[in-house]
């Protein structure tokens, strides 16, 4: 049956902000779905609160709503747009849960919206752990013994019956949120409590632990004619007990016989049929007993997932795209495989390479969180690497991570392990941590047997033996030495994935020499193609990976080519925003007639979709791998040549390669590497600002504690200590006295937390700046072309004061409070800096405004995190314009061309709010500081600041209350400002509760306090935590007291978090909230699409 013509418009729900467990893989799936559905002629209505996504670009849907993802808001959108159908399976767990909620609220029936893809019954059967188990048992599949509980007491009983150790798994969760292991009653108490809290229906499954079993996933697709296929099988290197999202995983499965694999395939099919997913992709997880082969089914996700994104990139089969087509009525055999073009999508991809996924964690940014992996997701991103062997793909994956590692050890980071004794290594390897595999390698290198390693880690002996082969090769290479290396030796080493960097370390020579020697030996990388069919048919899509074989498959360049370097794995400080910029560059440059070449190693992204660019190289973003690609393209011949490389859109990752490229004679497009230094290098930048007469916070650079001390005494405390060449305020601290300063400096040294990232040195000094207290922070994104014209993209005023990292604070366009002349000064400074740095393309400048003096904090001659937000707010496609400008177009030309048009402004305000991961890290303080810790962002857009701010809070899961009690606990220096906030809340009819000190201050100034609570610990009466826990508080304002590690007040903030009470930690945010509440009380809520906002803006300009 061809596509359905009884549907006209379809509603898609995105997955909202990037959070742990739900990242940009859903931007990838959502973007694909939008594209497909529009190609098929449907009207697409999209709602997603995340402005950093590509899917929320106005051109991807007919109506794009950047609004909070909650039932009331989506109901309004449905009421307004009247879609015929809702496709719930492409927006992650968020989309799925909302679809169910909308159904339960009767909204879908009321407006006659049909659920396509998966019906509510199917979603329930899959997501409700208990119903799932019954269903699976009913069709004869094995599941681990278990029981259900709704209270902690029930849980304890069930646990006894099931038998410890048990694992607790909440219903309707993602990324293992709230799951956990319990070995005994005490532990069970805590784990059960957390699990019940995590489940929206407070239901938990208590299951016998089968930790240590082998874990597998199958990605399955089904069409309405009941044709079912497996797209990809995935084997976890880390066995059961470590969440698949936390595990190193490999495609295809490596250690299953065909008999076992087919048994698993049959089970997956039986599962998807029983669950009743009518069309689309599902993810089915299995565990296999290593010694008996017994198979049990763990769960199924009736939607596209992180793993389906991985499977799509791993096989070249675009699951989300096909799922969208199936949802509107196509059968698999009616859809063409667009890689082979001659064969249908009704087949099972087969591959002739190995794919390894490696997660990336951010524990270094979350002091207090123990870096131990378990059934909860904690990783913030992942990389994927392709090689012809597991060893090759594994080592490529590790060097893709950008954690300072060059491969599976054989690099400077391995020195940390010298301290370990053999037994220590083995016992540390027994614990799943981000370091585990490196400990395994070291243990094997010390002649610990594969059997022993398997015994303590439960990592399959086959994987251990593969690592042992890397170990043995390393020894061989060490014996040989660089001089003895023959062509055969180079091939052998490279085929096991050894990077030039590792060999440089091994032989103590510069990396450039390694490269030269290898090329001299005639050993070059060869690029193979990902084609879904192991070369059985010819492939039309140039989706390549590098390996060391006889021949490669690179076609000559047909047009002038531009290489766009992506941003690598998602991490805190560098995420989907940069992928957005790279993807836009690819689109703009393709339209402008260039051949676009994308290089990236992040499987979650749109940039690594094979039809985003003309060519895709799924490769690590390292010196070696990028040079290989550029050189290969340069000698590829053909009419087009290599125009150059764009390094300024992928964040800090590609920027770091600018010099290497230049040194190797490869043109760097846009701002020159020397200008990049002028901005990054503190001395040079200071000189520049002085020359331009732009004020900076007083400060200096120090490479040791004494220098730091001297500077601090000159400029006076408080000072801000920050390492150079870092992103996201890494290891940045505000210190108030000498002792704080010493501690901070020590942490920056090699032995300290920043050790692996390079520590301190003359090349990497620490910057000691006067910390500007209570200053307003302002972010500016600007563009400059080769004629020197500068375009101010957007001026963003932060809600939180300077000192809260720009990435973690809310900000607004246009600036709600800045004086016109201040804005003018900021714009002038920005133009002057762009001019002086000879910026070609984007640059981002951050300012702190204190008592009307505008200080510049830093300038980055590259795309910033805020570019997509600015574009959504103003309708100006900054990244596209930047890409064109970097290739020589002038702003004037782009205006004529129509790509660049005036910003849509005047009628609306856009507020960006950060989303923080604290929910997953119970022991981390939620206080905001100069080190960025947010994983994602949402946008609220409306006619006024208050309404927009309110939406941004709702979007971030901090919905503002309209009545009730506000609890205040303020630091002394915040008491005056806090007074104002308290008064506003009182005027809005809120009751006021406060801790003694704050209460006194309010009282004295005539703000009545209804409840005074004791400091926590003072066991007199109820304390703050009791009050919050008792549900009597609706809003918490807690500004940090004391200095250095601001421990005090933490329990208040944690209590608010764990009881879902909205909480702000700055007075400025409290004032904004008050503004939002009063607006929300005054006006009925309204939803409008970006298209409407932008068109209005344009109209306003015309009249």
């Amino acid at each position, binding site marked *: 049956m061809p596509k359905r013509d009884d549907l006209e418009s379809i509603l898609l729900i995105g997955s909202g902000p990037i959070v742990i467990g739900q990242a940009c893989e859903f931007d990838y799936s959502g973007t694909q779905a939008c594209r497909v559905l529009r190609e098929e002629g449907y009207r697409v209505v999209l709602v997603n609160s995340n402005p950093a996504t590509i899917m929320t670009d106005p051109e991807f849907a007919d109506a794009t709503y950047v609004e909070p993802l909650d039932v009331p808001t989506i109901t309004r959108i449905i009421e307004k747009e009247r879609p015929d159908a809702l496709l719930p399976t492409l927006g992650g767990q968020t989309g799925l849960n909302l679809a169910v909620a909308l159904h339960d609220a009767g909204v879908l029936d009321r407006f006659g919206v049909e659920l396509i893809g998966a019906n509510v019954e199917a979603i329930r059967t899959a997501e409700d752990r208990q119903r799932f188990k019954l269903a699976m048992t009913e069709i004869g599949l094995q599941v681990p013994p278990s029981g259900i509980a709704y209270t902690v007491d029930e849980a304890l009983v069930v646990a006894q019956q099931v038998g410890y150790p048990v694992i607790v798994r909440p219903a309707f969760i993602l990324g293992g949120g709230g799951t956990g292991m319990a070995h005994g009653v005490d532990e069970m108490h805590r784990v059960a409590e957390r699990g019940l809290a995590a489940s929206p229906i407070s239901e938990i499954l208590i299951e016998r632990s089968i930790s240590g079993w082998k874990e597998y996933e199958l990605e399955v697709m089904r069409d309405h*004619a*009941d*044709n079912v*296929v497996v797209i990809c*099988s995935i084997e976890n290197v880390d066995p059961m007990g470590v969440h698949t999202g936390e595990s190193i995983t490999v495609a*295809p*499965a*490596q*250690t*299953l*016989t*065909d*008999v*076992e*694999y*087919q048994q698993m*395939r*049959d089970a997956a099919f039986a599962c998807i049929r029983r669950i009743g997913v009518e069309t689309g992709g599902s993810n089915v997880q299995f565990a296999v*007993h*290593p*010694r*008996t*082969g017994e198979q049990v089914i763990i769960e199924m996700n009736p939607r596209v997932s992180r793993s389906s994104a991985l499977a799509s990139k791993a096989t070249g089969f675009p699951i989300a795209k096909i799922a969208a087509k199936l949802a509107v009525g196509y*059968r*698999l*055999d009616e859809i063409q495989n667009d890689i082979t073009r*001659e*064969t*249908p999508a*009704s*087949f*099972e*991809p*087969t*591959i*002739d*390479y*190995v794919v390894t996924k490696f997660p990336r964690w951010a524990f270094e940014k979350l002091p207090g969180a123990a870096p131990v992996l378990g059934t909860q997701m904690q990783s913030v991103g992942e990389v994927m690497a392709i090689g*012809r*062997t*597991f060893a090759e793909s594994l080592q490529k994956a590790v060097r893709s991570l950008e954690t300072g590692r060059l491969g599976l050890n054989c690099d400077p980071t391995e020195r940390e392990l010298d301290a370990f004794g053999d037994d220590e290594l083995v016992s540390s390897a027994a614990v799943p941590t981000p370091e585990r595999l490196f400990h395994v390698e070291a243990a094997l290198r010390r002649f610990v047997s*594969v059997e022993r390693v398997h015994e303590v880690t439960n990592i*399959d*002996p*086959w994987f251990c*033996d593969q690592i042992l*082969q890397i170990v043995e090769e390393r020894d061989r290479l060490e014996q040989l030495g660089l001089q003895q290396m023959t062509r055969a030796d180079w091939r052998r080493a490279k085929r096991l994935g050894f990077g030039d960097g590792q060999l440089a370390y091994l032989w103590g020579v510069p990396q450039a020499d390694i490269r030269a020697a290898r090329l001299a030996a005639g050993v070059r990388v060869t690029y*193979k193609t990902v084609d879904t*069919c*192991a*070369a*059985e*048919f*010819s492939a039309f899509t140039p989706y390549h990976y590098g390996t060391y*074989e*006889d*021949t490669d498959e690179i076609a000559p360049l047909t047009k002038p080519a531009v290489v766009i370097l992506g941003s690598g794995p998602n991490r805190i400080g560098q995420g989907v925003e940069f992928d957005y910029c790279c993807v836009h560059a690819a689109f703009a440059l393709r339209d402008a007639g260039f051949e676009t070449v994308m290089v990236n190693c992040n499987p979650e992204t749109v940039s690594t979709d094979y039809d985003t660019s003309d060519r895709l190289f799924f490769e690590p973003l390292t010196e070696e791998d990028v040079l290989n690609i550029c050189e290969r393209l340069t000698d590829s011949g053909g009419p087009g040549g290599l125009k150059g490389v764009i390094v300024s859109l992928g964040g800090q990752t590609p920027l770091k390669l600018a010099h290497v490229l230049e040194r190797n004679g490869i043109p760097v497009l846009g701002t020159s590497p020397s200008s990049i230094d002028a901005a990054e290098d503190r001395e040079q930048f200071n000189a520049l600002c002085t020359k331009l007469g732009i004020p900076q916070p007083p400060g200096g650079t120090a490479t040791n504690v004494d220098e730091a001390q001297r500077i601090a005494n000159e400029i006076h405390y408080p000072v801000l200590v920050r390492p150079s060449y870092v992103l996201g305020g890494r290891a940045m601290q505000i210190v108030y006295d000498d002792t704080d300063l010493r501690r901070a400096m020590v942490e920056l040294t090699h032995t300290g937390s920043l050790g692996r990232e390079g520590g301190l040195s003359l090349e990497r000094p620490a910057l000691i700046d006067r910390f500007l207290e209570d200053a307003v922070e302002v972010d500016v994104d600007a563009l400059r072309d080769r004629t020197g014209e500068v375009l101010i993209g957007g001026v963003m005023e932060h809600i939180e004061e300077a000192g809260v990292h720009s990435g973690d604070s809310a900000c607004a366009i246009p600036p709600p409070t800045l004086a016109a002349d201040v804005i003018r000064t900021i714009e002038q400074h920005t133009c002057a800096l762009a001019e002086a740095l000879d910026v070609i393309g984007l640059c981002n400048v951050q300012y702190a405004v204190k008592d009307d003096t505008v200080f510049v904090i830093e300038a980055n001659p590259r795309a910033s995190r805020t570019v997509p937000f600015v574009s959504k707010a103003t309708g100006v496609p900054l990244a596209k314009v930047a890409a064109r400008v970097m290739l020589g177009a002038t702003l004037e030309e782009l205006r004529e061309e129509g790509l660049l048009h005036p910003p849509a402004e005047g009628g609306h305000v856009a507020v960006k709010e950060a989303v923080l991961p604290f929910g997953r890290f119970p022991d981390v303080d939620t206080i905001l500081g100069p080190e960025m810790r947010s994983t994602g962002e949402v946008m609220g857009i409306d006619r006024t600041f208050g309404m927009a701010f309110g939406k941004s809070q709702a979007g971030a899961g901090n919905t503002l209350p309209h009545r009730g009690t506000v609890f205040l606990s303020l630091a002394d220096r915040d008491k005056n400002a806090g007074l104002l906030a308290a008064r506003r809340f009182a005027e809005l009819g809120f009751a006021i509760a406060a801790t003694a000190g704050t209460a006194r201050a309010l009282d004295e100034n005539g703000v009545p306090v209804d409840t005074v609570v004791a400091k926590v610990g003072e066991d007199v009466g109820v304390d703050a935590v009791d009050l919050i826990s008792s549900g009597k508080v609706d809003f918490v304002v807690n500004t940090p007291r004391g200095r250095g590690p601001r421990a005090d007040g933490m329990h208040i903030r944690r209590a608010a978090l764990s009881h879902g009470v909205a909480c702000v930690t700055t007075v400025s945010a409290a004032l904004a909230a008050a503004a939002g509440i009063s607006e929300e009380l005054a006006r009925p809520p309204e939803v409008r699409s970006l298209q409407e906002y932008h068109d209005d803006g344009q109209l306003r300009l015309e009249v």
Partner: protein
Amino acid sequence: MADALLVLADGTTFEGEAVGYAPPDGVATGEVVFNTALSGYQEIVTDPSYAGQIITFTYPHIGNYGINERDDQARVPHCRGVVVRDLARRASNWRATEHLDAFLRRHKVPGITGIDTRRLTRHIRQAGAIPGAFGVADRDTLLAAAERDGGTDGCDLASAVTTAQPYTIGPDAASLYVVAYDFGIKRSILDHLVGEGCQVEVVPARPPAEEVLARAPAGVFLSNGPGDPAAVTDAARNVRELVGKLPVFGICLGHQIMSLALGARTFKLRFGHHGGNHPVRHVPTGRVEITSQNHNYAVDADSLPEGSVVSHLNLNDGDIEGVHTGGLGAFSVQYHPEAGPGPHDARYLFKEFTELMRAG
């Protein structure tokens, strides 16, 4: 491991290392084909249909889960050699009893590893299945050997791999007695027939129709097997005399032989179908089956006589995948419903065969 070369008859040369059995002259020859399955190397290596052929595995890691006692498809492998990118040196699976390398040596199957199998596969895709030779011998020797090897065209390889003596499996109590012509039959086919309640007498490729009819079976099965169907002596003639008299079911070579018996022609495909992911449409229902395939020859659609109907079509290249004779109670498929290795989507065919026999 000793350095070795793989040389194709057209002179194309690949570098690798010798594994498995080491032939005294350092030369192994055969027709080089590739298989794209991700798992199931044990079943593939022991599938008699590969007689005369060198199997290239497109998946790089082969041998990971070793060899076990259950999954062999025949008592001994009949292939001429295996070509892999990376032969596992450690076997890991709870059922594993032996390493693939040891197994190859024990059964005198030479192998070569470290080969750029993707380059080889792309070459075969262009040039077609082509004779080749590999081993530790020098390039000229290997090239000469490759040129000497005639390939499989016109060879009756089935007679070489068929059983010498008839044998019977399945319980005497079984309700259905089936005679199976052994052109190189796979164990999993017999398992399925027995599983469906048949007792099966497996007979050599030769016995004439009257001998078979004399045994008064409920039906006749035509097995898979190697080589050129047109060259299998007498087979088509025998089958012609059986079709219409009693239910007949053929798989792969058996399908080609039945088609020949019905008067159709067969032809050689460029590089054949060898893998576990080929989509096939069941024409009556439109349902798609993912199938296990292993054949170099196919039935020419235009040559199909009146009365025989195409029941299955390959969705990749439109080749005939199944034929039935309408009223005559005979049907056959080009692919492998018994899997071993491969997906189980088409198992229903064994049931259809037994239903046909029960009805007839």
